[in-house]
């Protein structure tokens, strides 16, 4: 069992080690080649320590995100130092704020524009479940209905400390990834459904014709 080492927080102090261990067990269910795994470790080490977030914020949580980037909390200490304004240069999208039904297609497009490997962190109650606006007619109840989410950070808005904790959880997830793949790499992307793919094809052909 691999216990990834995260700067500043010892493994035992993470609160959900059971879930994490289950996830690792699932990932490595078929076993991994020793050499390949070592290469993976090297790649994951590099990736997890330079996750560049996209400058994306829709409401309150965005201000806390700015506070996390500023001097006192200084997210740069952990490798998230450069926020990127273009999704094409970003590794992780921090969905900070309410996502409305008008914003949902835009968010999906932003996610699609990001280069792999890409990660999503849902920050705050609104992006997790709709938060205080869950009964509204114009709010998406959880950003995970639109894009797959890696880490959820609860709060309204979360404190900067929980921001950092959530980001470190993401680092842990990145550190156990299998880049070269095990048996799991053949698994189909659960979010790319056949119908969606066909629709995309249609759109592409329409665009080509135009």
């Amino acid at each position, binding site marked *: 069992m691999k216990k990834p080492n995260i700067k500043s927080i010892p493994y035992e102090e993470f609160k959900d080690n059971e879930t994490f261990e289950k996830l690792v067990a699932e990932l490595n269910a078929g076993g991994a080649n020793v050499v390949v795994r070592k290469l993976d470790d090297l790649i994951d080490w590099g990736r997890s320590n330079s996750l560049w977030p996209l400058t994306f914020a829709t409401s309150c949580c965005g201000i806390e995100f700015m506070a996390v980037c500023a001097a006192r909390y200084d997210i740069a200490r952990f490798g998230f130092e450069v926020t990127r304004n273009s999704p094409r240069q970003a590794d992780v999208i921090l969905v900070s704020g309410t996502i409305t039904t008008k914003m949902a297609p835009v968010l999906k497009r932003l996610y699609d524009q990001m280069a792999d490997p890409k990660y999503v962190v849902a920050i705050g109650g609104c992006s997790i479940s709709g938060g205080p*606006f869950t009964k509204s007619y114009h709010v998406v109840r959880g950003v995970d209905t639109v894009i797959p989410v890696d880490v959820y950070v609860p709060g309204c808005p979360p404190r900067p400390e929980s921001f950092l904790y959530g980001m470190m959880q993401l680092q842990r997830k990145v550190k156990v990834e299998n880049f070269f793949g095990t048996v799991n790499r053949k698994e189909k992307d659960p979010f790319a459904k056949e119908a969606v793919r066909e629709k995309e094809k249609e759109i592409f052909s329409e665009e080509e014709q135009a």
Partner: protein
Amino acid sequence: MNLDIRTVAPENLREEMLRLRREQKMNFLETLTGMDWGEEGGLGVVYTLESTETGERAALKTATTDRENPMLPSVSDIWKIANIYEREVYDFYGIKFTGHPDMRRIFLREDWVGYPFRKDDEPEKENPLRMTNEPLADVTESYVLNPDGTVVKETHPIFEEGEYVVNIGPQHPSTHGVLHFRVSLDGEVIRKIDPVLGYIHRGVEKLNESLTYPQTLALTDRLDYLGAMQNRHALCLCIEQAMGIEVSDRVKVIRTIMDELQRIDSHILFFSCLCQDLGATTAFLYGFRDREKILDIFEETCGGRLILNYNTIGGVMADLHPNFVKRVKEFIPYMRKNLQEYFDIFINNVIARNRMDGVGILSLDDVISFGCTGGTGRASGWHNDVRKRMPYAAYDRVEFNEITRKEGDSFARLMIRMDEIKESLNIIEQLIDNIPDGPFQEKTKPIIKVPEGTYYTAVEGSRGEFGVFLESHGDKTPYRLHYRATGLPLVAVMDTACRGNLIADLITIGGTVDYVVPDIDR
């Protein structure tokens, strides 16, 4: 205050409005609120007006019982801000304004079915989550009322054939949130801006109609999160005035100090973001360093950093923390000293001055017609401070200057905020030593019911007049709760402010006008 509303028939509305504008000099359209009074009352609009010269106020309403095809006359040629307010009403209630030049939806998608704020509408039934890209029309409609009473629908193009249109937003780091501008360019010069809003429209006003009064308080903090204290203060004040609750002196002083701390917080963030937009990242970090000090003070007393949830109906949530006075007293000289650094590092810099001096000039007539309250209006010489116009809380017992300037350019808007930080520090200094004793919370009934009537209360938010329009039918939930967004006029004025300027100046002008998008969209 309880509004004394005059009913005007739709056919006489324009005449009456023109008379008020001309004879009583009602040049400031404060709010324009759509209403649904059911089958009998019909769909209508409530207008509140103020004269900036005499201080006189007026409230009018008009309604139509036609629910199929409701039509009311437009006032968008009398007050420029009515253009965007009427589009909002059309979006939510489906009332078409005859004579309005641009009758499009503004917050919801153009393929949205129905009008969500009508009492009989079921918005979720016909509007599933649409993941297709939103349609954006190239033409707009207007309804022209002929002298014989018939209405003709006309279409106009939004942008002329061959115009070069650039999209800024909805995902753009310098729009301060998810705001979408369609900008028409002639080379580098801006010809026209068409704002597309609603990317963070959460339907707060509609949600309020199903929440009890104490529950509605929670959502105000999340409108303009940099004016969380003041927003909540406004709603508490409105409900207290309607119910006749008199809060203790202690509460009044606490609220005043908190409002001013929030204002400093907001203005520091304004400065930081403006610097960041113009590429001065160091200044951004300086601003946030000082802002954390205020957040520390808030955190001790309120428990929150950004969303504070502090004011309640009849008082505040908790008494001041024992450290509060000490911390605030330490903060005042600290901030005064550090404010000088802002000037050294950014404001006196020649590059920054060149980007702001004489850029994006707004005239006095424009800011009043657009209802741009707050620092943006005061930078053009409009004395619009609610703290002076209609004193509330403890503002009548402190001495402070209302900062105004004449230039109306980006630099003036920046300087207004910097000077207001100093004024806010002065206000806090006057109050902090003698916070009166008393209860921090009045006893209220377990179930709060506001007596029947229509009420309007405004406070000076961080970026202008934040108003609460409340119509109660005597229930434990409001019949209609409308917020006068401070940011909506500021976005509406962007077109006027930016025309003829360079596209790069759009960022500076947007930064100095200082809007917060969740407050615009509500």
